[in-house]
């Protein structure tokens, strides 16, 4: 078992942080890499990016949004309990370079994935501007850590309850009009990444995105995670999860993410009846 050492709830309990003892993975993981977790014998294999690692204490941190049956199950795990299986580190690490000015854009839980990458770009000597957003103030995560990892942080909420009233893309446009940016990173919901990339493409700013297609093995064995990048099929688990955002077919990715919606609705109903009984 991989025990949970520390646990936090954020965004009113819709986002959960687990710091998990997995020393072998903690020693090796780099920003941008992910793990696959399986809670118990009957559980699903769920990919989550590492939001932090601590080789000293042998722990990795994941931050996940509670969206379906498996993440609901994860949420029930208390400190001292844990996961039967964790596999990783998987995927390619982010290529951290000294590019000059780097713009890190994150939305929703994507901010958790963005944070270690942001920090690494800063440590590599870049000037780092952050833009993070959420639907409403209560759903915003990791503002303080993002503030520490950036030279300049902008916060947006869709409903204007905090920070800039509007989308991350509004702030993005303002900054691109203001100064030269050498590299962008965008991580969040697929539509957000799609719109960010549309803007940075026009501005000619190379943009990395981190993709989250449905996965099974995470080792390039099943092809379920295939995404179309520059017209070619790539496996996000081994060729990614980060890709050149200007080449990704986001519409296809969005459709493919819905592949099991009917089945998941069924399991949702099933769980609801169990609770109802």
């Amino acid at each position: 078992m991989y025990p949970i050492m520390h646990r936090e709830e954020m965004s009113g309990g819709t986002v959960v942080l687990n710091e998990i003892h997995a020393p072998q993975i903690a020693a090796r993981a780099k920003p941008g890499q992910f793990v696959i977790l399986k809670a118990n014998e009957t559980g699903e294999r769920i990919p989550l990016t590492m939001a932090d690692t601590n080789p000293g204490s042998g722990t990795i941190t994941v931050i996940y949004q509670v969206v379906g049956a498996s993440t609901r199950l994860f949420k029930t795990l208390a400190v001292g309990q844990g996961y039967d299986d964790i596999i990783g580190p998987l995927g390619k690490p982010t290529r951290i370079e000294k590019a000059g000015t780097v713009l890190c854009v994150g939305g929703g839980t994507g901010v958790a994935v963005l944070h270690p990458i942001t920090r690494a770009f800063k440590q590599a000597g870049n000037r780092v501007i952050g833009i993070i957003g959420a639907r409403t103030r209560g759903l915003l995560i990791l503002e303080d850590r993002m503030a520490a990892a950036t030279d300049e942080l902008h916060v947006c909420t869709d409903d204007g309850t905090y920070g800039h009233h509007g989308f991350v893309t509004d702030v993005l446009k303002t900054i691109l009009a203001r100064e030269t940016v050498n590299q962008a990173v965008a991580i969040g919901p697929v539509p957000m990444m799609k719109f960010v990339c549309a803007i940075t493409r026009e501005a000619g700013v190379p943009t990395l995105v981190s993709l989250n297609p449905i996965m099974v093995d995470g080792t390039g064995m099943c092809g379920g995670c295939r995404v179309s990048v520059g017209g070619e099929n790539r496996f996000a688990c081994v060729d990614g999860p980060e890709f050149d955002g200007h080449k990704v077919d986001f519409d296809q990715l969005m459709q493919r993410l819905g592949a099991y919606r009917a089945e998941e609705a069924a399991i949702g109903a099933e769980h609801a009846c169990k609770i109802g009984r």
Partner: protein
Amino acid sequence: MEKNTQTWALPRQSMPEQDPQVRRSNFKEVPLGYTEQAAVMEAKRCLQCKKPGCVQGCPVAVDIPGFIQKIADGNFDEAIKIIWRTNSLPAVCGRVCPQEIQCEGACILAKKAGAAVAIGNLERFAADRARAAQAQDLPAKEPATGKKVAVVGSGPSGLTVAGDLVLKGHDVTVFEAFHKAGGVLVYGIPEFRLPKDIVRSEVAMLERLGVTVACNQVVGRTVLLDELFEQGFEAVYVGVGAGLPTFLNIPGENLIGILSANEYLTRANLMKAYLFPEYETPIARGKNVVVLGAGNVAMDAARTALRLGAETVRIVYRRSRTEMPARGAEIHHAEQEGVEMFLLSNPVRFCGDAQGRLTGMDCIKMELGEPDASGRRRPVPMPDSDFHLACDLAIVAVGAGANPLLTGSTGGLKLNKWGYIVTEEESAKTTRRGVWAGGDIVTGAATVILAMGAGRIAANSIHKYLTLGW
């Protein structure tokens, strides 16, 4: 020794099976196994040939007349011991070997009496009986050598290496990427053909012998092969299989409802999605399913789809029946259950709706032309023969390639042009000192028994190396 001259002409004992109409909606094993009586009757058909063709037909040269004689004598405990000398997974091989082109294909009775001795069924009988009777006394182990061996991959070839070397007194650790050991035996071949309890008991047996099975270890990611040497392993066996899905590369292949057989079968078998929602992994349940390809993998996918409630399941294959690479028994079982064959048909494109879901497939009819490099007649498209097949689930089972995850992160391994590891045939040594390889990652997708045979060769060579040097 009793002469079996009168009994050989008796009909081959058939194996009782679940009725096709019943089994097409459950995941329980299809053939039910011989009774003791039937096994003895069948064993008595064997002529005990002086120069047995059957043994030559078996890639690991099981002493077939030897173990069959013991069954004929009712001495089942001795029978299994004879098999174990050369084959450590008889319950598996008895079920999945392509016997008709191996042992049974070379049995004299195949010609003489029209039906070979049912060697596979008898091997299965002996192994199942031993497992049920818990007759698996641990084989004798040699004294500990203190030498550490790493086996990467827990498929049949890795398990064979582990079993052989632990008995020779070495300290063996198996590294497996998945959360369960067994390779294709657990993630690929379905429960109705190979119950997972059998694989589990084989792995448990190795653990009782002292093998450490370390799951969730992706070598090349979690740990590098080079680091295994730093950790004190003196020899490494690479048996990572041919785990790379092949797609058709035709338009529309990323529509929802098109999966590789690897994904479909992994969800169904390893993740037990057929027990959804008790097991939480979902699986696409198609009404009208097409399976592209005609090997064992395709048959397994097709029969799984039926069991998951499909109304029609169609195998679409570009060559003809004689070229179908699946075991005869699987094709027969699939047809009995209602799988339809669309032979000499080639998919051209997939069609979908506005939501990106698969709705059908355009195909073209083929005819057989001149033989190609593989000696099989090459299928060529017939002009103006397009036709459309409506389907909501398509499973692509047209072969597997070499997964570059380990080989790409390990220096010093020579690969061939398809990415498979190059080894010395008689020793299974790779071009890197201290590293051996075998099974599908060397030969390309092949068979369980060939993977085990390669494991045996490597184990002997590794033992020699650990005692005498490279």
